[in-house]
């Protein structure tokens, strides 16, 4: 079980690095876009594309970090009311559904990226292959799978199913 915890912590470290890179990229590219257009009078056509590319990565990587931190909004009405074993069963069911869903979307996204038409697609301005953007889905869903497995294991080992 320790291995799951360690894997999840390790993934979390990678996610932090990616979050810093893509966050800075949004700020820098959009600011540079204004500076070039307004002050230097040469528009930077790629600034919007870099920013949107980074936003997609931040969304799914940050979403994965949100699972680890228990930061995503959820409805706690029922689970606040329940206690002990019943609560544990409810929470474990929730964690199981999460693992199944994330695993299934991961499977779908691998199939999706394997279809031949993915490699035809390029971004409008930079002509960058779209696959570099699309990769954020399978990669972050692998990360999400690791984190949600950690929650499941922690839940199983605790008295009321709480993983946090």
């Amino acid at each position, binding site marked *: 079980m320790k291995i799951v915890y360690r894997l999840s912590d390790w993934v979390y470290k990678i996610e932090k690095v990616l979050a810093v890179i893509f*966050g800075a990229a949004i700020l820098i590219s*959009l600011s540079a876009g204004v500076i070039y257009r307004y002050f230097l009078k040469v528009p930077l056509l790629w600034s919007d594309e870099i920013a*949107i590319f980074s936003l997609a990565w931040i*969304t799914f990587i940050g979403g994965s970090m949100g699972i680890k931190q228990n930061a995503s*909004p959820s409805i706690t009405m029922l689970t606040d009311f329940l206690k002990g074993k019943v609560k544990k069963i409810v929470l474990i069911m929730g964690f199981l559904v*999460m693992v199944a869903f994330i695993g299934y*979307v991961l499977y779908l996204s691998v199939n999706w990226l394997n279809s031949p038409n993915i490699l035809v697609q390029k971004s409008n301005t930079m002509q960058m292959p779209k696959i570099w953007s*699309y990769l954020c889905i399978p990669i972050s869903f692998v990360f999400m799978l690791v984190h949600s497995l950690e929650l499941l294991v922690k839940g199983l080992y605790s008295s009321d199913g709480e993983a946090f």
Partner: protein
Amino acid sequence: MAIALILFVVLLLLRIPIAFVLGMTTIVYIFATDNMGLMLTVPQRLYSGMENYGLLAIPLFMLAGELMNSGGITKRLIDFAKSFVGHFRGGLAYVNVIANMLLASIIGSATAQIAMMSRTMVPSMEKEGYSRPFSAATTAAAGLLGPIIPPSMLFIIYGVGSGVSIGSMFIAGVLPGILLGLSFIILIAFIGMKEKWPTQQRARVSEVFISFIKVIPALLVPTIIIIGILSGVFTPTESAAFACLVALIVGFFFYKELDLRKLPSILVNTAVTTAIITLLIAMANLFGWMLSFELVPQKIAAWMVALTDNPLLFLLLVNIFLLLLGMFMDGIAALIILVPIFAPLLVNYGIDPIHFGVIICINLTIGILTPPVGSGLYIASSLSDVSLGALIKAMWPFLIVSLVVLLIITYWTPLTLWLPSL
């Protein structure tokens, strides 16, 4: 469709994050209707939800908020408001509302604002003799100004979903935001007279002057945003990037409180808080796609149009519906799901989409303070250590005032439409 609805509720009760519940419901729907061809589009559609220029403002406003907190800008805004209105009866309560109005001109989210202000305002109000539930209630209510006075995350999401210019939405929010702020101030004056609150010593002119000098760099942030948008240097989205740059410079060079070593952790926080919203948008995009496939928007439209052809009655129905929904659902999630359903209806009733956008955003903002599902309520209650029951009891006058303001905005269109028409 009924199966999808039941499943949706059951999954929510299992405490699965709302974003994921939206995705799960869509997948089960595709299975149930045997449309397996759609399955391969699921990841594609998840990704495409993010390919939207307007959404870029979300991480940037989140970042601006984090930078302002760490850089001491928030503190200067509160000090400034204090030196001005702190000496009146109920002075600190006014300070709370006014500081929130200033803050709202930089920050785009109510929950972010409630979290920032609960930590600073509630303890200092309590020290001056206000009850803690009242302090927390004032802070939470004043936080509602966050997404109404521009910039605003909700307006951005509405603009993205409906195709209305985000800049026009921002301008339309100014007067309603000021009206709501003033209404809170009147309410506080009324409560203060009834309860015979303490007054503070009037600040000396020199003190006012010093706090004003200190706040000038902080006020640079909203000033640059407004001037930049109006003079055509940048779009509202780009203005958010500049708000971050100015907050960085002010926090680092003027107030010297921003530690550059903290930057990585600020960016990590920004990523997580951004993703809370944008992942919800990505998943809701999937969910909305399922609704479109089932022609749900058209069905609701037909039903609504058959029910009434009076625009005022329509708006009233929408308001009631949203207030009920706002009790159970987070505002942003509700907005993302509802805009594609309601937006096509507006033409039938001759309602301006900007006016409608302001109404629906204010309505759903009020929802973050209504139980049982109200993120603002929980943040205020936990950060200021007040029980939910006590907080709600202190909150209801503010909620009633908010509803009255909502009604005024609904029926008196110039309040929203006059400024954008200039």
